[in-house]
């Protein structure tokens, strides 16, 4: 039954994709319906009117778009239901589908871990499908056919869901690559821009390399097992070295998809160019699927965790978290910034997962469960708020046709609802108390603080350092999102577009973000809801749950014991409400003082503020750029146009800044260069002269004969 729900989710997403293909087949449909009605003349007139009304030339595209997204939304709903029911029932359901290799049908397994990620996907897909119809209506059908977008969106979602269901390496890889390829087409959807094509190429290339690494990881396991099913792979007892090799390969593969530094570079290229609801799915959900893969691979298949892996994850996670947020800080393109911020959040998740591994191998399964919980919880939260922010960015793009935050400003008055939703997203991602992001970071800190129980001195001193890096990350994230919100919504409009922007007319477009924002807040106040679900995951996977001290009641979060740490967001909310209301009412008790006087702000006597006087994105991040100057490759130039006698007067000043990632010159350019050089060298063997070719043949023959005798 539960599995049926899951299958429904997958099938519906397929169906939505296929339905989108009908976009260009209106005439065929029309003909089909006419013959149908001729055959069954008894059909009701209303039904007929409905069908033909929707097949009307004007109406049809709108109708089809809505239908596609409704079905996609249903798929999301089924995914949520399936996920919840498997989490609540704590079942493990297995099945086989008659596809795949002759001796290896697709094995399906639906357990708590899959269920939890089903839940994440379901929520995100649900929100996206509420938002979708309004957003895609902005595309011109002739330039950007909906059939392509809808088809690959459906396939993308189906691929992600299938990855979670897979119980053998072969099906896993098929689903995994389906997800990659479908999202590649989505990234390349608006392929007129060279930037999009580049990004798509880079994305697919890295997806391919990552997938190969994963296959090899499975290969290592499979060469010690008989078969590719996960059951068989679980039984392959590897030596420590081989297990580490397998883990390293899996980490490379899944890390590439998840966007771990230094293999994160596709992320900031691909996310900005994809349609926003796709970026939301990619960033919010697909990265989580990569996380799922890593968890499945290491905690489930390898099972015998080694603490060294944890250290690797911890270090990589820390670097990614810090690197991600620092790079995000200096971006002016909103979606690029969000993409880098995804790198940061994935870094945090990996960091905590690393902690869990360290505790696991050092004989503290309870603490491992805590770290595991923090990681999964943060994954869940990140899916919520990153989705929210990407959808918000989509709305902004839809309304202002801009993604450069230096071109926005003052939108809070023009788009009050969007701004509120976006603010909630910013607050969640900055991990401010009362919102969900804070809870998972709090749990992460709590995990790190348990380092004292470890015997290894190096680990004990390493973990607090990582925790401090986490603190720095969180603070920088707050700075970054102050910049984002402040520059986009506050101040004065910086461009014509944002001056003319209006709130979205189609309110369903706001429904998706609204759902996510509500969840952000709800989970922030009642984290127990999700934590209970994750506990059933870790019970299945690790055999341990977080020792939540129930003595304090369900409103409380006491991960280790009430003595050590506790947090009750609900009580904090009550306190905040009391404090806020009291001060508010007390200070405004005098009706005369209630009114505020509006006046022009102080302009230093220069006669009016102009939007250009405001701090820009680069100006805002300038102190941080100065402080962490080594982190980026910065090319900063100030050109002055001189005029007048002796060219002494400055007519205009041009400021250029170009910020690059270190990983390009250090990692990717040498590889690209190397391959091109190699190809050039290899090209030399093909001289064009037939005598040389005969010579090759001759030498090969002689050499082979010599070898053989």
């Amino acid at each position, binding site marked *: 039954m539960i599995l049926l729900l899951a299958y429904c989710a997958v099938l519906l997403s397929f169906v939505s994709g296929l339905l989108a293909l009908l976009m260009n087949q209106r005439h065929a449909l029309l003909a089909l319906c006419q013959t149908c009605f001729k055959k069954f003349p008894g059909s009701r007139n209303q039904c007929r009117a409905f069908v033909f009304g929707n097949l009307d030339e004007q109406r049809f595209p709108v109708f089809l778009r809505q239908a596609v997204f409704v079905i996609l939304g249903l798929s999301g709903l089924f995914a949520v239901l399936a996920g919840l029911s498997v989490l609540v029932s704590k079942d493990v359901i297995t099945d086989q589908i008659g596809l795949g290799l002759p001796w290896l049908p697709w094995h399906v397994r639906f357990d708590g871990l899959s269920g939890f990620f089903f839940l994440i996907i379901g929520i995100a897909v649900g929100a996206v499908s509420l938002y979708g119809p309004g957003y895609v209506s902005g595309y011109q059908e002739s330039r950007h056919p909906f059939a392509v977008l809808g088809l690959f969106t459906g396939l993308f979602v189906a691929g992600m869901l299938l990855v979670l269901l897979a119980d053998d390496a072969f099906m896993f890889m098929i689903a995994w690559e389906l997800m990659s390829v479908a999202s590649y087409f989505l990234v390349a959807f608006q392929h007129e821009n*060279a*930037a999009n*094509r*580049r*990004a798509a*190429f*880079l994305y697919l*290339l890295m997806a391919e390399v990552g997938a190969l690494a994963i296959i090899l990881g499975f290969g290592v396991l499979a060469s010690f097992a008989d078969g590719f099913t996960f059951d068989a792979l679980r039984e392959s007892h590897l030596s420590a070295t081989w297990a580490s090799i397998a883990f390293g390969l899996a980490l490379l593969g899944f890390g590439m998809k998840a966007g771990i530094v230094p293999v994160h570079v596709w992320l900031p*290229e691909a996310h900005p160019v994809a349609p926003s609801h796709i970026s939301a799915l990619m960033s919010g959900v697909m990265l989580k699927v990569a996380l799922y893969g890593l968890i499945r691979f290491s905690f489930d298949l390898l099972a015998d965790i080694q603490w060294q892996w944890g250290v690797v994850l911890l270090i990589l996670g820390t670097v990614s978290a810090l690197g991600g947020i620092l790079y995000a800080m200096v971006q002016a393109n909103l979606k690029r910034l969000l993409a880098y911020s995804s790198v940061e959040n994935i870094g945090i998740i990996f960091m905590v997962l690393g902690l869990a591994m360290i505790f696991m191998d050092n004989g503290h399964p309870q603490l491992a469960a805590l770290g595991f919980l923090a990681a999964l919880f943060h994954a869940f939260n990140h899916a919520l708020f990153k989705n929210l922010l990407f959808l918000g960015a989509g709305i902004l793009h839809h309304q202002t046709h801009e993604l450069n935050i230096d071109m926005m400003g003052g939108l809070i008055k023009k788009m009050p609802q969007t701004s509120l939703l976006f603010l909630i997203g910013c607050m969640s991602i900055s991990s401010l108390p009362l919102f969900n992001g804070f809870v998972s970071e709090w749990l992460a800190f709590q995990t790190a603080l348990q380092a004292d129980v470890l015997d290894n001195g190096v680990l004990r001193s390493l973990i607090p350092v990582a925790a401090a890096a986490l603190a720095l990350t969180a603070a920088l994230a707050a700075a970054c999102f102050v910049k984002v919100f402040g520059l986009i919504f506050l101040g004065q409009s910086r461009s014509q577009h944002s001056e003319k922007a209006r709130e979205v007319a189609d309110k369903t477009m706001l429904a998706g973000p609204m759902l996510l924002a509500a969840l952000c807040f709800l989970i922030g106040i009642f984290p127990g809801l999700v934590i209970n679900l994750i506990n059933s995951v870790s019970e299945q996977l690790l055999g341990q749950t977080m020792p939540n001290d129930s003595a304090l009641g369900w409103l409380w979060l006491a991960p280790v014991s009430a003595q050590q740490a506790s947090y009750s967001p609900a009580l904090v909310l009550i306190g905040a409400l009391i404090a806020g209301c009291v001060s508010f009412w007390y200070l405004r008790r005098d009706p005369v003082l209630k009114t505020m006087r509006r006046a022009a702000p102080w302009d230093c006597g220069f006669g009016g503020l102009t939007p250009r006087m405001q701090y820009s994105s680069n100006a805002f991040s300038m102190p941080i750029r100065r402080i962490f100057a080594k982190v980026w490759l910065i090319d900063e130039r100030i050109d002055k146009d001189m005029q007048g006698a002796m060219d002494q007067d400055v007519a205009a000043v041009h400021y250029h800044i*170009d910020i*690059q990632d270190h990983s*390009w010159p250090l990692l*990717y*350019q040498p*590889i*690209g*260069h190397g*391959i*091109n*050089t190699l190809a*050039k060298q290899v*090209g*030399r*063997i*093909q*001289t*064009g*002269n*037939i*005598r040389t070719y*005969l*010579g090759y*043949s*001759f030498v090969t*023959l*002689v050499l082979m*004969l*010599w070898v*053989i*005798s």
Partner: protein
Amino acid sequence: MNIELQDIYTQAILSMAALVGLTSFLMLGQSRLLRLIFVFAFQGLLLTMTTMVAAYSTDNQHLYISAVLTLALKVVFIPWMLRREVLKMNLHRDIQALSNQTTLMLGGASLMVFSYYVLHPIVQTTSPVMLNALAVSLSVVLLGMLLMISHRQAIAHVVGFMSIENGLFFAAIVATNGMPMVVELGVAFDVLVAAVLFGIFFFHIRTSIDSLDVDLLNRLHEVDEQGARHDKNRSAVINPHTADYEVNR
């Protein structure tokens, strides 16, 4: 192995083998096309004689047929065709300078030794005669290839190609008393068609490059002449920040 202990048939075959090997050497060192073709025809004749001897000694009917085929194709038709081409193209006066003839001959000689070396392991299971015959035919094959590598005229290539066929044929006759009939016929047919095709190609090549020098056929290659242009673009492959990776744009 003592040659005087072998029967007359074997002695004859061995002599033929030696002669065939010798003709291959002669061809390798030959720089005049007409002589080359003549030596090739002579090799074909030797082959025919070998076939006859084999046919006679084993009383194998179908070897006679193949002897006739060889005679017709390799001694008459192909040399005639090649000779006609040479005369038509006025190539018979050209002396193609073989840059290092001595090295070439030494190389050929070492190839012969090499053939013996390669085939040596089979001597345990077979007679030394066979070893000789096979080694000679292998060296004829290899020498034919060497001929093609060292000569630039398309005509010489055809001769080399056909002499490789001769080597194979020799092996087939001596070692196994010929192949099954159907195969022999098939091979002969292939050789015939190949010869015709060569004729067609001489015509095409001549009309296209006005020469039969195969070194001039070098338009299709992968060597980079304009290295600089690629250098400029090479780091652009996957770097989205520099220029456009679509190199050819």
